[in-house]
């Protein structure tokens, strides 16, 4: 954290960002043209309007960044934009497949999903802009630590509420209010990250205390075990009652990761892992749906006609893609159920090949690396924890879903950030990018512009008013 030496000469690198965004937009345009050409659908009359809207949204987000957080990291926005655009292209491509299939069967053409997703991209951009406009300094968020925590838990448990909770494909993750469905867990992951960051900043010193050692392993004090046990219980609750392994894993992993960062005690990692193991084994033994998931994971081909169908089709899709892919519009990604949500990576892997799949994983990797770099660069511990937590959220989510569709780990129902069809996820992930940009701006801003320096501890006590 040696920004002092660089002083006021720190470059904003906003022009690099703009160039990258234009490239991302160009990739989207070429991809869509390729889909239209390869599927013989031709160019949709509304195509240039759609491309124009996407370009406009990308440009506006860029201009807001230029205005509000000029020193923010120049790679995050282009990567998020590129992933969103790739998602739009693939969702459009799957729309085409669905429309052609309906035409073959003489069914009425289904409503395309791509325009909904485009609207959600608009909403996501709006929230992105709102965050940049309203949150000048991320430390404000620390004031709302417990509000965020309470709201997060409520949102997380909301789908279980009678009357508004909705079960889709076996998982009770949705809430339906006034005809709109959304996944509250997506918002909850941001709120809980804020809560964990705020909570850990205050308690990390006592959590780091070591009183006993067992077999040389330093253990935290028993009375400090409370929070981790509560999060563990809530995560298990999500797993059991909402039947969603992914969300459960996400929250528990996020908390343990942040706990480790805050305390620097690896004993928390060990403890977290042990609790996770106990929870997993317990869930495996007690609940049929967990057992089924694991059995399908171990031998999907034995269940190829039933529960293993998705994953088998996904693997066939990847295999069909090979090294360079079939080319957009040339494969059969529509053979995988839920190709535009959970299995969008399989669709991209089939048509863009290993090259495309590796590219996408690397894009996520760079995005997360930039997030962690921001966490390292920012001076206040709350900001450090928040940036790290948000990056970990993205990291776990990407690992769990892509690992799931490629049979590295059992399949769970998380969305693929930015790519998947679905509003809640898109909006939430764009808010994460906005928060990371705010933190990044403060971290990379030349010293002269910023507030006077203070010790981390002072910040913590200054800002939090209880």
């Amino acid at each position: 954290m040696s920004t002092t030496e660089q002083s006021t000469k720190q470059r904003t690198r906003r022009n690099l960002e703009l160039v990258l965004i234009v490239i991302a937009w160009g990739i989207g345009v070429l991809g869509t043209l390729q889909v239209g050409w390869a599927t013989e659908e031709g160019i949709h009359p509304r195509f240039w309007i759609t491309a124009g809207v996407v370009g406009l949204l990308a440009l506006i987000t860029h201009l807001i960044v230029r205005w509000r957080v000029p020193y923010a990291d120049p790679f995050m926005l282009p990567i998020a934009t590129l992933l969103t655009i790739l998602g739009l292209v693939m969702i459009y491509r799957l729309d085409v497949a669905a429309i052609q299939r309906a035409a073959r069967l003489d069914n009425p053409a289904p409503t395309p999903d791509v325009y909904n997703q485009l609207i959600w991209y608009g909403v996501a951009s709006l929230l992105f802009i709102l965050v940049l406009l309203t949150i000048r300094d991320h430390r404000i968020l620390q004031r709302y630590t417990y509000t965020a925590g309470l709201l997060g838990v409520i949102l997380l448990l909301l789908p279980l509420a009678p009357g508004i909770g909705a079960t889709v494909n076996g998982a009770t993750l949705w809430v339906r209010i006034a005809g709109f469905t959304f996944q509250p867990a997506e918002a909850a992951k941001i709120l809980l990250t804020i809560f964990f960051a705020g909570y850990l900043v205050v308690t990390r010193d006592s959590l780091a205390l070591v009183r006993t050692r067992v077999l040389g392993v330093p253990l935290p004090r028993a009375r400090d075990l409370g929070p981790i046990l509560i999060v563990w219980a809530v995560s298990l609750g999500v797993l059991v009652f909402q039947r969603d392994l992914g969300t459960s894993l996400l929250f528990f992993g996020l908390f343990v990761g942040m706990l480790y960062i805050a305390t620097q005690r690896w004993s928390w990692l060990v403890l977290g892992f042990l609790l996770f193991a106990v929870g997993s084994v317990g869930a495996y033994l007690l609940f049929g749906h967990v057992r089924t998931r694991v059995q399908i994971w171990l031998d999907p081909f034995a269940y190829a006609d039933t529960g293993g169908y998705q994953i088998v089709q996904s693997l066939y899709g990847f295999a069909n893609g090979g090294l360079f892919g079939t080319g957009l519009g040339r494969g059969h990604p529509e053979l995988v159920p839920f190709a535009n949500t959970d299995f969008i990576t399989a669709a991209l892997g089939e048509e863009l090949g290993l090259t495309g799949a590796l590219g996408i994983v690397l894009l996520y990797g760079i995005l997360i690396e930039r997030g962690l770099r921001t966490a390292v660069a920012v001076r206040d511990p709350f900001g450090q924890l928040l940036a790290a937590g948000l990056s970990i959220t993205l990291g776990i989510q990407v690992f769990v879903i892509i690992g799931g569709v490629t049979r590295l780990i059992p399949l769970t129902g998380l969305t693929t950030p930015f790519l998947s069809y679905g509003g809640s996820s898109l909006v939430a992930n764009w808010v994460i990018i906005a928060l990371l940009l705010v933190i990044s701006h403060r971290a990379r801003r030349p010293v002269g512009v910023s507030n006077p320096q203070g010790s981390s501890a002072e910040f913590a006590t200054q800002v939090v008013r209880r």
Partner: protein
Amino acid sequence: MTRSIRRIGLVLMVLFLALLANVTFIQVFQADNYRGRADNQRVLLEEYERERGPILTGPEAVALSEKTKGKYRWLRVYPEGEQNAAVTGFYSMVYGATGLERTENDVLSGSSDLFFVDRVQQLVAGRQPRGGAVTTTIDPVAQAVAWEGLRGTRGAVYAIEPSTGRTLVQVQSPSFDPNILSSHDPQSIREYYEQLLDDPEQPLINRPIVALNPPGSTFKLVTAAAALSSGRFTMDSVLPGPAEYDLPLSSRTLRNWTGEDCAPGGEITLEQALAVSCNTAFAWLGNELGPDALRAQAELFGFDTKFETPLRASTSRFPEDPDEPQTAMSAIGQFDVRATALQMAMVAAGIGNNGVVMQPYLVQEIRAPDLSILRTFEPQEFEVALSSENARQMQLMMMAVVDNGTAGILQGIYDAEGNLVRVGAKTGTAQTGRDGEQPVSWMVAMAPATNPKIAVAVVVEDGGQAELSGGAIAGPIARAVIEAALQ
């Protein structure tokens, strides 16, 4: 906290490396395994996504791909399905491919190395690969005539251009409709295929090149050729031709089909013996020459050799180690002598081509998707079966069979200019040795006999009783095919 953030970063990096490694493992190392799985619809869809190239006879396509609106984009269509089934085979999503559809699959599907340049262009341009075209050597008119003549019987026709070995006709009956087997409806494919399998007449075997039948009297061509080749006989040599021939070492006798002496006085020239198909004279001749000489001559015509035209033919055979009565029977194409229609057409073709037997082939050209010729197949010599002098004598003898022998039905054939064509031929009727089965009728012929454009073998497996039946049943088909080929 910097250090612990970096460590968490490291953990995430390991997880992401695992993702990268796993995706690579699936898409590179496991891909072939997954592609080969039976329930993988993509492979099939992909296959039907490409425009498979046509199989042509002359300018006409006998197999081509038509665009559909269905799930599978291209449908294989055979305009003269049953007539050409022995050549094209079928292209089924359930049972794979047969015939040229199988042997020329690389070309038709576009995956042949011959298309390397095209494939590079397709890769660059991102175009869907198209298949190349295969042009056959088949004479479409003669093929159609043969099919018309053969319909309703159980039999086969094979015709060769003697100077090159090009296959002019390859027809079987009963045949099957490759259109049904190549459809996109697995249910009807299965039902039809089961029905074909259950059919006792075996429509699925490639009868002209796979069915082995005793060649009967048509094998006397080989025996006569062996006699000339031995140097001890000419077409004018006089042989004993009594009504009965006592088979050596046995109490059984061999009779002529007329039950009488082959000629007044019981003596007959080799030429006459062939013309009237004298069993006793040829049985005697067989034992005079011995089985080794007969087999050697047969092998020069193609017996005991596997031919791939590229369609794989059965190996025609002469018995391993016959005793004297067996040799006598073998000399007249009975006992364990077995031949395909292809083989007997090759015998006639070799004689007509002045003793030179050409390698039979079915594919003339391979064309790129843009129909430019990539490869042309050249005629290849198989063996010299006879000296040209002996071949000349054989030609004269076969003409005698038509002019004043058992193949009179082939008299009076005219070519395109209206000139009378001299035809050489040999009839045959063979007992299969199986109870209750009708004898097999043969007609083997070439025309014009001294410089033939076509050599044809017609075999009808349910052809009737008498020796004349070779001429009476197989004869008209041979005549029609020859007339069509000479037009």
